[in-house]
């Protein structure tokens, strides 16, 4: 039964016109992670690679393609956890980086902390040599359209993202 990898691209509303890209995105991420496992790689390498692929894919709400906050900015959160030692690393409200999951792994491997947030997370990224990128490169037309649509008075962002009870 081993090795095995399972990937998700998010629960909630996937418009029909985006379902094809969403499905092919998670399938290629799963393939890439499985190739690492078959090559003897660790489960940590596999899950991080799968998530990096999805962060790079503008179809998904992570990394490039993240939804925008009320001010129209991108703030991202990420977590990794290692089941052998129960160590973990996380970043929250981090900006201007392409792959928050890589930074979360660096928090786990390079600090004694569990989570770094906001400006502290960005300073740590700089210290680790993680390149800073312009926020514009994280924003897609789709995420901007959804942001504008949910600025309207009476809008319900949670329902717009999650849909009604399944």
């Amino acid at each position: 039964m081993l090795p095995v990898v399972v990937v998700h691209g998010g629960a909630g509303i996937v418009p029909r016109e985006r379902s094809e890209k969403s499905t092919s995105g998670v399938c290629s991420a799963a393939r890439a992670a499985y190739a690492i496992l078959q090559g003897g790689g660790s489960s940590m390498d596999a899950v991080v690679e799968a998530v990096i692929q999805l962060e790079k894919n503008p179809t998904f709400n992570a990394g490039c393609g993240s939804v925008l906050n009320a001010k129209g900015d991108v703030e991202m959160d990420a977590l990794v956890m290692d089941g052998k030692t129960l160590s973990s690393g996380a970043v929250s409200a981090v900006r201007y980086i392409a792959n928050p999951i890589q930074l979360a792994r660096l928090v786990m491997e390079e600090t004694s902390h569990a989570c770094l947030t906001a400006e502290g997370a960005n300073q740590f990224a700089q210290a680790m040599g993680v390149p800073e990128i312009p926020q514009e490169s994280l924003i897609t037309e789709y995420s901007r359209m959804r942001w504008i649509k949910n600025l309207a008075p009476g809008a319900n962002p949670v329902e717009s993202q999650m849909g009604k009870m399944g």
Partner: protein
Amino acid sequence: TVGAVAVDSEGNISCATSTGGMLNKMEGRVGDTSCIGSGGYADNNLGAVSTTGAGEAIMKVTLARLILFHMERGQSVEAASDLGLAYMKSRVGGLGGVVTVDPQGHWAARFSSLQMVWAAAQKDTLHYGLYTGEHFTQSI
């Protein structure tokens, strides 16, 4: 939100979750993803979970650790995932989805929302789906 869980050939288990958060969230709002036990959890003795959905609801029930608790008490990956999601829905009215794996390599992709896009790779077979009940396979 995106995430993954994996068990490697040595039996080591990991999880990873990443997100842009909730649409039009307040500046500084942090959801479940970066919180251990909510956005994800991994333990070689129990399994691993990566979660997605309404972050405030996931944190209220610490969804990832709750599912592993059900597995600790003998529930299958699928039953434990459904129990955790059902509790979140009935207790705090939250919708979400999870991918779950146990140390033997049994896995589940379950959700209480109408959709969750997912994929799994095991024994040279790729599994995937989007709508409730979908489970397609193809050779890797």
